[in-house]
């Protein structure tokens, strides 16, 4: 793990840059401290939580479902979580409270339960079925979310665009404190599962024959996914492709073992969100581009390449 101090140093440097750069470039003035403390500070910490959460969730989903194309946004978890969060708010909760967080977790968990139960047949998780079920769940949850945002006054502070493309611009310290415990617990769970996830790549029956309780491992991984993703989504919206791209990129560099993969992916996800969030503030200054738009512009073409590669290694999908 020679790269670890270097990676941490890069992240620290980026944090400083991210704090300094923005729609309003920080000069030396009296207002500087307030901008750093109240606006940029929470935003940078949130980027760390969201980036590591999405990347870890991607690793866990891909490993536990033996599906190289899994990503929380692609399989509907993020849409379910956004819907759950908005539903809680339209029922009277405020954003970034325990109640909205639980609503988001419930929404994410229901979406994930639906897509995984449909896609596991005869104890074999099917790659394509998961993605197709994800399309349906995302469409359904997205439609309900649009209805709720349209008819409910209490959710009007956040637009449909905010939910579908994500933004860290509304981040406050309260939001950070709401999201952090869920991401920390989710990361803690994922840290215990590396070796079981390795063996799961043999398929359910072979892993079971080696003494791995496959359904327990999968259950635990998916609970961690819900914790890592849902509350973050209810705070910053849906940021797609991070959970897909980061684990793939990291796997190419350091190999597929889940121990190092989980750790380095969390760091790389943090890096990616710090960079893209900073970019979202400066590319069209003074207007902020939604961060989810940037990750999708980069992520969608790479997803296309991954589909072709997966298809080549698994045979055609008639």
């Amino acid at each position: 793990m020679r790269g670890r101090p270097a990676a941490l140093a890069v992240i620290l440097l980026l944090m400083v840059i991210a704090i300094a750069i923005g729609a309003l470039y920080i000069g030396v003035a009296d207002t500087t401290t307030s901008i750093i403390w109240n606006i940029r500070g929470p935003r940078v910490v949130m980027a760390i939580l969201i980036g590591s959460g999405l990347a870890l969730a991607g690793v866990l989903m891909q490993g536990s479902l033996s599906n190289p194309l899994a990503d929380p946004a692609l399989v509907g978890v993020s849409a379910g979580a956004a819907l759950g969060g908005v539903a809680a708010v339209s029922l009277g909760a405020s954003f970034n409270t325990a109640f909205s967080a639980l609503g988001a977790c419930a929404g994410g968990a229901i979406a994930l339960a639906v897509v995984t139960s449909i896609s596991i047949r005869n104890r074999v998780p099917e790659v394509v079925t998961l993605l197709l079920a994800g399309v349906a769940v995302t469409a359904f949850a997205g439609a309900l979310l649009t209805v709720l945002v349209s008819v409910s006054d209490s959710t009007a502070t956040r637009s449909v665009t905010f939910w579908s493309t994500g933004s860290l611009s509304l981040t406050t310290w309260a939001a950070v404190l709401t999201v952090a415990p869920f991401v920390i617990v989710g990361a803690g769970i994922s840290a215990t599962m590396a070796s079981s996830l390795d063996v799961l790549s043999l398929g359910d029956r072979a892993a079971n024959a080696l003494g791995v309780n496959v359904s327990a491992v999968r259950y635990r991984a998916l609970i961690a996914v819900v914790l890592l993703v849902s509350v973050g989504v209810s705070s910053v919206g849906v940021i797609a492709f991070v959970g897909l791209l980061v684990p793939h990129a990291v796997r190419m560099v350091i190999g597929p073992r889940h121990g190092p993969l989980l750790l380095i992916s969390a760091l790389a996800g943090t890096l990616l969100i710090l960079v893209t969030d900073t970019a979202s503030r400066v590319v069209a200054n003074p207007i902020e581009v939604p961060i989810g738009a940037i990750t999708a512009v980069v992520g969608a073409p790479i997803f296309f390449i991954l589909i072709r590669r997966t298809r080549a290694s698994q045979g055609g999908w008639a």
Partner: protein
Amino acid sequence: MTFPILDLIDVSVRSKDLIRLHVINVSVEAGTLACVIGPNGSGKSTLLALMAADLAPTTGRVMLAGQDLSKMTIGERAKRRAVLTQETTVSFPFTVRDVVEWGRIPWLSTTSSEENSEIVAEFMSKLKLNDLASRPVTSLSGGERKRVHIARVLVQKAPLLLLDEADSDLDLIGRQELDHLLLQQVKSGGSVVVVTHDARRIAPISDQVILMSAGRVHAVGKPSEVLTTDSLSSAFGSPLKW
């Protein structure tokens, strides 16, 4: 003195309205090699899945060395039987050595890491995998990948080996070497159950043949008793000369 390593007592498998296995009674003696043959869809893999506890019987009990398989923990089962399934795909590009080493997982808490590495090294060379050790298993040919999984199953050092078509994908030399390894296993007191379509090759080294047909045990006994033109023709539903 012999004793049954496996005893399937009044076992049947039914899923919804489909009977996959009618009530059967089969026993495998310890220290023997049993081969399971039969036409496609006759229940061979279902039988093996029952023996592996991958599948719970709808009726009856499966006893492993006198103990009910369903009452053992997953970890206990992993120390007593190793299973080679037909599925050889590995989802991510782990190295050959990684995959073979996973075979030692059931023993990690009770065996020293030196001993584990020795066992892995022994079977890596027996299966001629040393040159492939650091190759990603996803880049191998079907036959090479099969050898990796056979090595993984053998390093598990379980007294009972359950192999579903271990010989498919292997070339002629590979099959000859596999038979040699299975015989070694039996000589050292282990027990082996193989599902195969290559009855002619495996019959001479088998102690028992289980001939399946339409979810039933059509015939069971010594190879010379079971493998006859008459019984094979009726099991396969078509004239078959032996």
